């Protein structure tokens, strides 16, 4: 089982994660309404670290960090002189990654789950699985790593992952016994 060294990490709740595998949140995108008109040129000039990204807060690794960052931003805008308020903070998108720790047969999966999957190895090495309920997009890679995105809350991600896990187990690459990948000194037995 992987060791997660994140602060504020709770012990694995098997009710929420029956597969025993947890997700690592990678990105949270949220918006907030400051409730007043802003002179963007002035802000861009007067505030340090200012980039014109209207009201969007990205890059946070947890929902709390995202809210904190948004508040800090509102404070900066206040200091410049605008009457900023903090209304309608809403998380728009949560992204997480995970690893099932075994290789997956993407081609078979895309063949059988044709309605949900897009797999174009020439264009992108990962399979794009569009789950209907919850409405999440998963990028499944042959290495076993899975990226989940499009969720409004982390619970949606957990649900989506638990739903995809049995599917992915079904398409695990079968282990061949005594697989020795670095055999350069053995004479091949072609005529066995």
């Amino acid at each position, binding site marked *: 089982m992987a060791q997660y060294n994140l602060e504020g990490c709770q012990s694995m709740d098997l009710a929420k994660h029956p597969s025993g595998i947890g997700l690592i949140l990678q990105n949270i995108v949220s918006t907030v309404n400051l409730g007043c008109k802003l002179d963007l040129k002035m802000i861009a000039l007067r505030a340090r670290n200012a980039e014109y990204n209207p009201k969007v807060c990205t890059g946070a690794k947890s929902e709390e960090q995202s809210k904190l960052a948004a508040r800090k931003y509102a404070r900066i805008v206040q200091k410049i002189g605008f009457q900023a308020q903090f209304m309608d903070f809403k998380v728009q998108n949560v992204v997480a990654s995970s690893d099932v720790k075994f290789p997956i047969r993407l*081609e078979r999966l*895309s*063949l059988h789950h044709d309605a949900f999957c897009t*797999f174009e190895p*020439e264009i992108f090495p990962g399979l794009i699985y569009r789950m209907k309920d919850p409405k999440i997009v998963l990028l499944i890679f042959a290495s076993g790593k899975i990226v989940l995105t499009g969720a409004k809350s982390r619970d949606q991600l957990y649900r989506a992952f638990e739903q995809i896990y049995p599917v992915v187990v079904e398409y695990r690459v079968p282990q061949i016994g005594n697989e020795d990948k*670095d*055999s350069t000194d053995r*004479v*091949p037995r072609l005529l066995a």
Partner: protein
Amino acid sequence: MADGSFCPDCKRSTEVVFDHSAGDMVCSECGLVLEAHSIDETSEWRTFANESAENDPVRVGGPSNPLLTDGGLSTVISKPNGVQGDFLSSSLGRWQTRGSNPDRSLILAFRTIANMADRLGLVATIKDRANEIYKKVEDLKSIRGRNQDAILAACLYIACRQEDRPRTVKEICSVANGAAKKEIGRAKEYIVKQLEVEMGQSMEMGTIHAGDFLRRFCSHLGMSNQAVKAAQEAVQKSEELDIRRSPISIAAAVIYMITQLSEEKKPLRDISLATGVAESTIRNSYKDLYPYASRIIPASFAKEEDLKNLCSP
């Protein structure tokens, strides 16, 4: 040319002669013309085998194309012989130029697709399929903003896939007018989504496999039949292995391996040109494939020498 018919003058059935020059049916007994002006339905023109097929006088226009609005009728009002003054301002001229073809853009698009298909040497079925796909997509206004070249290239790409004769995106790129691989990929996703929305789940396009391209790559390189067969078997066997590479790269690496084992070794550069895979990618794929060499190369092609001769890069 004798026919038995009832002659009203002789009041009995008499021999009737058919006169082709005047088109008359004449009673041979009394000379009464029974039917006149019969229509000759035989061929108006004779075509000989050695004459050029350019202007077959039997045909009055091009083949009818069901994708165009009126089937592709090509009648025009032309300038009458020996008339002075200019045709375009006369009333007839105005009728000709005003009634512009409603399918002008469609015809242009079809011509571009035909050009690309000819450069790739594709058969008419694929060309027609691509035309159909383009027509379906063209009806949706949302196409307008997108790169037209990418859309046409993507139509051709999809047509090839649907006919089970896939072409790599790079191959399509090479004949597409400046469209980039990424754009064609995006256009293809877009078209597939639009068509699925339109007509339900009818896009039957399986994933690509290395074997689909192998035959063509081998013939570009001029490999011997034995080598080609060995390569095909090797690629079949490699599908069971867990190699995480694009199928094209795997095909290129297999070709490299097979040619290194045979008498005519192809340099990496030739394989790279024929398959469109970069040389370093072929080297890396070869590295991934090398440990399984004994498993995928058929015994009939090479025996223990293969391990000695194959270098591990």
